[in-house]
């Protein structure tokens, strides 16, 4: 009988570690990347995102662990032997070469015929809307154009994996949103495998198939974007993902009643912890709904209003002194002013329970 050959994944990381002196940059990352997907490594500055990508590319040598590309253990291979493309956060265009020569460089090194190089560079330039910069040096290009040239230089090859290290961080907000949508569309249409590192949770939520949450070199959670948002592994992740930030309130589950900020509430749809306990309740701003005073779970006084366009971020203070932030549709918030007393209804289904000792999410009883 012929054994079935397992289809190899484009990228697998196995216990990857790297320290710089006493500083642990990456503390044992294990990760499988499915073909044709966008994996986002999300983390604050210094979380180990760039180090992880550079180890995949072969630009940093791991202390331990394996980098497996398309089924081959290439942990010790030279960068050029890995067939990996990387877009650096500073783009790293060749400053002395034109847009065309920047994009053509990997093809020239692969000794492709001149007509083929010409054809592929032109095609990718049209795809990325940059035919007009092919004859220009990087220093004459705008930020967005440089970004696209860097992208084109990666896309012109057919690498196993694309590594993108904060590729949009140099752009202004509008362009960043436009380009990230384009990046996502390209990745989907061409079926490429992308690994993108970013400190921006909104970018991560917007483009990822899967998010790897990294903190101080450790993988905290690997989840689909909505799962990361709805069920963050711990308080820090909950705070990192979402704006305005999640509200954290002291709470207790007695087994029958939910005590929130000193007030006993009917549990309703609350997915309670398996056993009675004190916990830190995480409540996303959108799970707090303003209503007429006396009609909600709490009465609260509006202490600040921050228009966000279609929403208003409202900061309220409970009688016990606890501050909460909630978001309400701008149209419905016309009646609020600072000092107004409101009722606040707590959406039980969105309530998260975190262990106050270690900050980890307490999984609800089955």
């Amino acid at each position, binding site marked *: 009988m012929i054994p079935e050959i397992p289809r190899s994944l484009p990228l697998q990381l196995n216990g990857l570690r790297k320290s710089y002196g006493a500083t642990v940059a990456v503390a044992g990352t294990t990760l499988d990347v499915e073909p044709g997907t966008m994996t986002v490594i999300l983390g604050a500055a210094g979380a180990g995102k760039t180090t992880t990508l550079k180890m995949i590319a072969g*630009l940093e040598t791991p202390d331990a662990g394996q980098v497996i590309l398309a089924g081959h253990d290439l942990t010790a291979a030279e960068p050029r032997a890995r067939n990996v493309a*990387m877009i*650096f956060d*500073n*783009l*790293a*265009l060749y400053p002395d070469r034109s847009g065309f020569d920047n994009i053509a460089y990997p093809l020239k090194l692969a000794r492709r015929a001149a007509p083929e190089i010409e054809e592929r560079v032109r095609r990718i330039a049209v795809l990325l809307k940059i035919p007009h910069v092919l004859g220009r040096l990087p220093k004459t290009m705008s930020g967005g154009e440089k970004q696209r040239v860097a992208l084109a230089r990666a896309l012109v090859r057919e690498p196993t994996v694309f590594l993108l290290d904060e590729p949009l961080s140099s752009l202004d907000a509008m362009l960043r949103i436009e380009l990230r949508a384009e990046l996502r569309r390209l990745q989907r249409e061409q079926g490429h495998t992308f690994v993108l590192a970013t400190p921006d949770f909104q970018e991560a939520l917007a483009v990822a198939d899967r998010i790897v949450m990294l903190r101080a070199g450790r993988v905290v959670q690997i989840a689909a974007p909505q799962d990361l948002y709805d069920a963050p592994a711990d308080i820090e992740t909950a705070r990192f993902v979402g704006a305005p930030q999640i509200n954290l309130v002291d709470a207790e589950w007695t087994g029958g009643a939910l005590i929130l900020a000193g007030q006993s509430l009917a549990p309703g749809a609350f997915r309670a912890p398996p056993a009675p306990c004190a916990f830190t309740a995480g409540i996303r701003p959108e799970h707090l709904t303003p209503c007429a005073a006396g009609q909600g779970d709490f009465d609260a006084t509006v202490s600040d209003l921050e228009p966000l366009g279609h929403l208003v971020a409202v900061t309220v203070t409970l009688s016990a002194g606890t501050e909460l932030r909630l978001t309400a549709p701008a149209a419905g918030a016309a009646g609020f002013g600072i000092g107004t007393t409101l009722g606040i209804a707590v959406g039980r289904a969105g309530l998260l329970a975190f262990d106050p000792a270690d900050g980890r999410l307490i999984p609800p009883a089955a």
Partner: protein
Amino acid sequence: MGPKSLTLAQRLILLVALTVTMFPIFWIVMTALKPPTDWNAAPAVWLPSEPTLVNFATLFDPDAIKAYGLSGVSQPATPAILGSILASVSATALSIAIGLASAIGLSRYAKMTKWTPLMILSGRMFPPAAIAVPFVIMFSATRLIDTYAGLIAIYVAVTLPFSTWMLKSFVDDLPREIEQAAMLDGRSRLMAHVTVTIPLIKGGLFATTMFIFILNWSEFMFALVLSYSNISTIPVQLAKYVTATAGTLYGVQAALAVVAMIPLIVAGYAIQSHLARGMTFGAIKR
């Protein structure tokens, strides 16, 4: 700040500075063109009374000066000029080649401690006289004394800390991602440095080469103590233009000094456009 934005006071200060800097060069060129009677005339003769090229002729024909009634000098300057070219060009090329490799290694691959700069640069903390004598003894034992190989070895040893450190600063300024991009695009590590790193620090490379060449070209002490009869360099030859009857031959010395200046001026002019930094502007975000 463009030249037009200089105030009158700033222009005057620059003019004074320029005069102070340029005066010795003016004086040496004038002296090189003076006949022996003008050399140390009192009061000083500013412009040659009868401009002559006899001083230059004496460099290549030791008897030429006899036309002015002075005894000739013992030897032509030609071997010294050739010796200077040989020693300075070879030593500079070696120092830059080794320094460039060290600079890239230190900048990109070495774990530097706080003592690394000291270890590299400490050789320069000693006065040359302090290391000249040990070198003479070592070179006597190894038969390197009075050879160009020995002189070149010393020049490389003395200038290598400078070339390494200067070139390292230029490599440090270049984002490593540019050469890493080349490695991912298909270059080997070595070829990524050769084809990407080095061309991008061309300006710094030229400036460092020029600096090291000047050091070697004008070096006097090692050349003096390590040369007997087989080798010579221009600075050593300059010191030899002293005769028993006429004292120091200032005009001939000046002529050799002018000859020695020419390659530096030509080289400086040729690479001046490369001396400005700015090759990497626009390639990276900052």
